[in-house]
């Protein structure tokens, strides 16, 4: 709980930049975790970095990917020659003081970028001065060369937990029955995070739980963060992101955590997920089962009708038989399980792009086993788009109709293998995303709509074979 505990932050410690160059960049640097702060209502990042750093990260993550918008008027020291030569601590001090004068927030998160790391500014010392005076301000070291926005997210959240949440008067208050903290998709990185977190919150509340969803429009903001220590359970709903946070909370507050690597998509996975959570927290079984029954009744009504399309009555469309994915592990795993496990596709090439910590790779690989009984996915870890392209296009396919789930970068790859492209990962510059979700019960149906609308359009507009008939 000491302010200095950030030094042994395990997520950051385990990050290493991949050895090769990267083309078609698929994540931001650690400073990009300022997006996670922006995703918390009434929290503001204060960035100590070069003039373009903060803007570039947020523009990439939000403005251009899914056109997500988001509040961007982030205080920044915009470091110049003077601060590089003489040090930038005084300038940061001036910026923090004026931020407190101009801006209005419940929490300020100071983040440092490459330059203060290289010139050796003592940022912690500056921030500590304000903390001592009772200002709700924390510091996360997010040097661009030390990590990406995934590890940066863990550093930022860890800073908020250790330096803000833990300092609340009621931090050690007793456990609130049925309260659960959810650590799942990385805000803004996944273009559908807002709708997805809303759906995840909805289904957990559906089984009678109280949910701290923590980020986005469905969250009550810092009120939820302050209640984190009182939760009965930390749910890590992602292949690896957030595990270190849950472990930390277990260490500090003794809160147990449940790790579910695959975000559920579709009734089968969602029902199993809800029962797993209910088991872990001891939720009322009747309440759980009645919610699941109600949701399934509606879901399968829709699925029954979709089955008419999927039966191929409209058989001029080439319904995909092989799923290929390029994206971060959370969505890749969830979507692979749904299309292989529920829709009956075969796994093709699955490329995981977020450069997870080395220590997490075996567990991520294991999560791709048994996508359907006896059907394994073999994910490849590759952050470079050029190599990802080669992996997809050079994969031998006999008699398969491929579909590709990826980012905008995959447009030409999809064209080369004749696959429809559904944009599900960063950067998605050909999608306008507001509240759409692809997970849970409702999201699954929207995912089917998007995927098969794409199939129909691709078949009718771009398929030369059919055009010739």
């Amino acid at each position, binding site marked *: 709980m000491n302010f200095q505990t950030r030094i042994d932050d395990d997520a950051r410690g385990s990050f290493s930049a991949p050895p090769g160059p990267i*083309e078609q960049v698929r994540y931001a640097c650690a400073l990009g975790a300022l997006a996670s702060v922006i995703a918390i209502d009434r929290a503001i990042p204060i960035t100590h970095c070069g003039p373009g750093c903060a803007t570039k990260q947020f523009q990439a993550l939000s403005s251009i990917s899914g056109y997500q918008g988001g509040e961007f008027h982030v205080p920044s020291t915009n470091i110049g020659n003077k601060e590089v030569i003489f040090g930038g601590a005084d300038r940061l001090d001036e910026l923090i003081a004026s931020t407190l004068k101009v801006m209005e927030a419940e929490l300020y998160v100071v983040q440092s970028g490459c330059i203060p790391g290289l010139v050796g500014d003592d940022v912690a010392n500056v921030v500590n001065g304000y903390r001592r005076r009772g200002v709700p301000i924390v510091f996360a070291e997010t040097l661009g060369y030390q990590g990406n926005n995934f590890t940066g997210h863990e550093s930022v959240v860890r800073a908020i937990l250790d330096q803000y949440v833990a300092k609340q008067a009621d931090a050690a208050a007793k456990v609130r029955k049925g309260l659960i903290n959810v650590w799942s998709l990385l805000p803004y990185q996944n273009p559908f995070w807002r709708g997805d977190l809303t759906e995840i919150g909805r289904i957990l509340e559906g089984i009678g739980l109280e949910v701290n969803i923590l980020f986005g429009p469905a969250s009550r903001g810092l009120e939820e963060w302050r209640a984190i220590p009182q939760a009965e359970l930390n749910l890590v709903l992602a292949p690896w992101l957030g595990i270190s946070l849950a472990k930390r909370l277990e260490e500090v507050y003794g809160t147990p955590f449940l790790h579910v690597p695959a975000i559920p998509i579709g009734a089968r996975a969602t029902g199993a997920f809800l029962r797993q959570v209910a088991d872990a927290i001891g939720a009322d079984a009747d309440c759980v089962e009645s919610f699941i029954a109600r949701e399934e009744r509606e879901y399968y009504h829709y699925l029954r009708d979709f089955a008419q399309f999927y039966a191929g009555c409209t058989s001029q469309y080439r319904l995909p038989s092989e799923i290929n994915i390029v994206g971060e592990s959370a969505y890749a795993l969830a979507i692979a399980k749904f299309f292989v496990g529920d829709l009956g596709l075969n796994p093709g090439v699955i490329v995981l792009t977020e450069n997870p910590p080395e220590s997490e790779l075996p567990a991520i690989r294991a999560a791709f086993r048994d996508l359907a009984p006896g059907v394994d996915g073999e994910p490849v870890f590759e952050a470079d788009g050029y190599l990802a392209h080669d992996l997809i296009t050079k994969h031998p396919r006999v008699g398969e109709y491929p579909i590709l789930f990826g980012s905008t970068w995959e447009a030409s790859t999809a064209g080369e293998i004749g696959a429809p492209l559904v944009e599900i990962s960063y950067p998605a510059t050909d999608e306008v995303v507001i509240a759409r979700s692809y997970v849970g019960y409702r999201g699954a149906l929207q995912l089917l709509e998007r995927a098969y609308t794409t199939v129909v359009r691709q078949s009718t507009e771009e398929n030369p074979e059919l055009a010739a008939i």
Partner: protein
Amino acid sequence: MAINLRTPQAETREQRLGTITQWEGRAQDLARDSAFTYGCGRDCGPGGRRLCELSSPYSQATMCAEQIAVTNATIIKDTVVIQHSPIGCASSQSFTSRYSRDLAARRGWKPEDPKSICTNMGEQDMVFGGVERLADTIRTAFERHHPRVIFVATSCATGIIGDDVDGTARQLEDEIGIPVVPLHCEGFKSRHWSSGWDVIEHGILRRLAPQRPHEKRDDLLNVIHLGGPDVFSPLVNPLGLQVNLVMGGQSLERLADLSTAAATVTMCFVLSYLATGLEQEYGVPEIRAPLPYGLDATDNWLRDIARVTKREHLVEAVIASERARIAPELARLHKLLKGKKGFVAAGAAFAHGLIADLRELGVTVDDAFSFHHDPSTDSKDAEQDSLGHLVQATGDVEHFTVSPDQHFQAHAALKRANPDFVICRHSGSMASLAGRMGIPVLPIFYSNDGIGYEGLLTIGRAILRVLPRRRFYEDVAAHSRFPYQQWWLDETNPYALSADAAE
């Protein structure tokens, strides 16, 4: 001071032009105090004084020169740009790619992703240096894409750790046999992102625009623009001139032709480094007439081009026919826009141009927001004093704010102005701010939109398209707020925080 092409680094705008980023007052005072009285006291004239710059303790994230340099290098065809940096600098790749594909659609090119690669430096590289990583990446870029030119852009990190980018580039150039052009664009080195234009233009001048003394073409006009559709050919083709459109995406051939042209025009003096350099190095004259925004300015701009390229006998007929062509539609737009209040936010000379356009359309402009201010240009020619010309030709702008796209200052300026609409560039914070304040906004992504006779129609029609959106923006404004303290939400002086605020 002449442009110095001997070193691989371009001098920043602050050094060359005395560029400032923070100022507040009347446009006529800024014009008086800057450019041709700047720094010397020699030609001050009555009332002239040294240009002062404000400062603000509070600041918000801006853009950097690296993004401008890299974006505009990336969209040059048959090249690969290497960003020698940690991964974050390269997160702009998706934006550049989107821009490039959009540009391709408008210019009729094959849409394809431009090629850029990040060396992806980690902590080890910060400790031991990254030149080996850079050398490997240059080889990788060459093997993967067989480019004709490779650019290597520096970053804050490489600037601080002192990687020998020039030496590595030279060494690899010998090895792979194509030009490897360093772009020194460390973000911290200039306080304004527009220095990035100078960086890429410096690289082009030094390495990609060779001297071709025996191939002079008296019908070729270099046009340096920010990017977008070619609105220039329709304007100058009737004079028998062909357009060599450079910057904002072009082939290497276009750059190789630069030295053979009869003259160079710039659609914005912020980009005039290349034009002045071409005149200095190859004697290609730079057209210095005020930019073609508004009818009279466009007439005079065409006359100056005709004069320099010896086509004066053709120009009056072109002017007359263009004026006649647009007159009915201009009259219609003027009637619909007359008395509307506009607010302009853009970069320096470009902002001055948009103000002239709006005033020609009958719009009242008492408030403007310029992202930086160049008190002079590289040519040092008073003809290029675009703010002075604006004030002289169309009158003063009462509230002229220079601010590097600062959201909090823009909020105060917009609150003071309370305009019917905002027209802006670098639409990031300004466009979303205006919308959220309930004000219809016209972001100009392609900055050629307002050029020449047709530009007046383009801009006028675009304003009319956005005005009805007030219904949407007001709804949003009524249901959201910005996280500023109430006193700042009420503030109407953008520089209220500055101790030495303008009197």
